[in-house]
């Protein structure tokens, strides 16, 4: 699995032609307690940079954009009843959606884990 991050604190973890999309651990920490996550329908086709989810904390709503284009093949339905799962493990159990990638080169230009860690430390 290769890990990629955007400057907006989304991640795309790639395995084969499947990307798992969510918000980074740093993002969940900044958001605070997550109380609602709105997920797309399975089958939705999205372009790189499209809004694909909304995460609401006690404080505010934030849009989540996909770093890669493709078709949504699975959503994490656990988040519907237990949105706090995002706080419990943003980069593990708290993933948002899985996308079947149409363009593998989308990940070029994204940060790898080391670069992202340095980015949030700034």
């Amino acid at each position, binding site marked *: 699995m290769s890990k990629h991050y955007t400057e907006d604190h989304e991640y795309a973890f790639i395995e084969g032609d499947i990307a798992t999309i969510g918000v980074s651990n740093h993002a969940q920490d900044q958001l605070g*307690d997550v*109380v*609602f996550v*709105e997920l797309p329908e399975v089958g939705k086709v999205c372009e790189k940079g499209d809004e694909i989810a909304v995460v*609401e904390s*006690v*404080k505010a*709503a934030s849009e989540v954009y996909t770093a890669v284009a493709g078709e949504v093949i699975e959503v994490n339905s656990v988040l519907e009843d237990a949105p706090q799962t995002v706080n419990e493990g943003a980069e593990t159990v708290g993933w948002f959606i899985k996308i079947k990638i149409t363009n593998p080169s989308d990940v070029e230009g994204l940060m790898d884990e080391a670069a992202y860690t340095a980015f949030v430390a700034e």
Partner: protein
Amino acid sequence: MSDNLKTALYDLHVELGAKIVPFAGYDMPVQYPLGVLGEHNHTRQNAGLFDVSHMGQAILSATDKNTNIAELFETLVPGLLISLQDGQMRYSLLMAEGGGILDDLMITRISNNADGFERLFLVVNAGCKHADFQHINQKLNGQATLEILDRALIALQGPKAAEVLARHLPDVATMPFMSLTHTKLNDMNLVVSRCGYTGEDGYEISIANHQAIEFTKLLLAHDEVEAIGLGARDSLRLEVGLCLYGHDIDTKTTPAEAGLMWAIGKRRREEGGFPGADIIQQQLTNGVFRKRVGILPEGRAPAREHTEIYSKSGNKIGEITSGGFGPTFGGPIAMGYVATEFADIGTEVDLMVRGKARPAKVAKMPFVPQNYYKPKS
């Protein structure tokens, strides 16, 4: 460094790990490491400590000893002030000429002063304080003087607040709700009011800036007490249906529309004598076109401020003025204004959230029962 003002407790907030945000010209703690949800729940179950020193505190005195200051101030607010007893406080509204609201405030009558003058202790919102004080000075020019107090104000709120504060000040345990007392702890002069804005029992304590950290640390040393930020303060007041000035009420909303007529005494409704009284009396007779109501979204999606409210037939009928997640309620909650014909409890409406109509119902407030102090008989 920001140009924002800092309260006397600022260094303590930083020491406690608070996340600081600009609010009404101040750098204020929005949350501590416990987080908004944890802080909210802690306040409902134990006792939360809030720095509200950014709010405006002032003492209003008549220039002439024979002037009744309560009667004089009734010309600016619609509350019943003349009947207030020494140390009794009231929630009231600083009214605009058109019937709108300049600010909401707490007014306490303080009669037993050594110089024989009667005074009113005012606590107003941070964001309005300069305009409020200017307005009062201008309107009461020559008849009264306003002494603006540069003091800290600390709120202790929650079901354990009385027990905790009484360990230091035994007399506060039986203070009536909405009353004020002057007291002393060691060398600290405290002005203690039994009031608050969370729906819980509790106190607001006015103290000299240089003693504020010492006093706050004394309270935080108790296991029951946690520091609470502005984030939880907002969800706490929303759950109990209390208005936030600048959002739920402002110069464009009247007390009749806002459902705040309980703050206007019967005598004042009849006699008037405050700015905008003619409008209020007319609205009492003829009704209002819109009303502030509670709104419960179905499902889990919160509806935030400025969310548009639609009737089931697709007409825009109003807007959410405060909305979010109610941790104690356990779901999304909101309040807003709707056209009067849609204001009945149970009316089904749609909320336009991110371009999608989502069902909601007009609901009774408070969403969580208020838990104010009642003396044991």
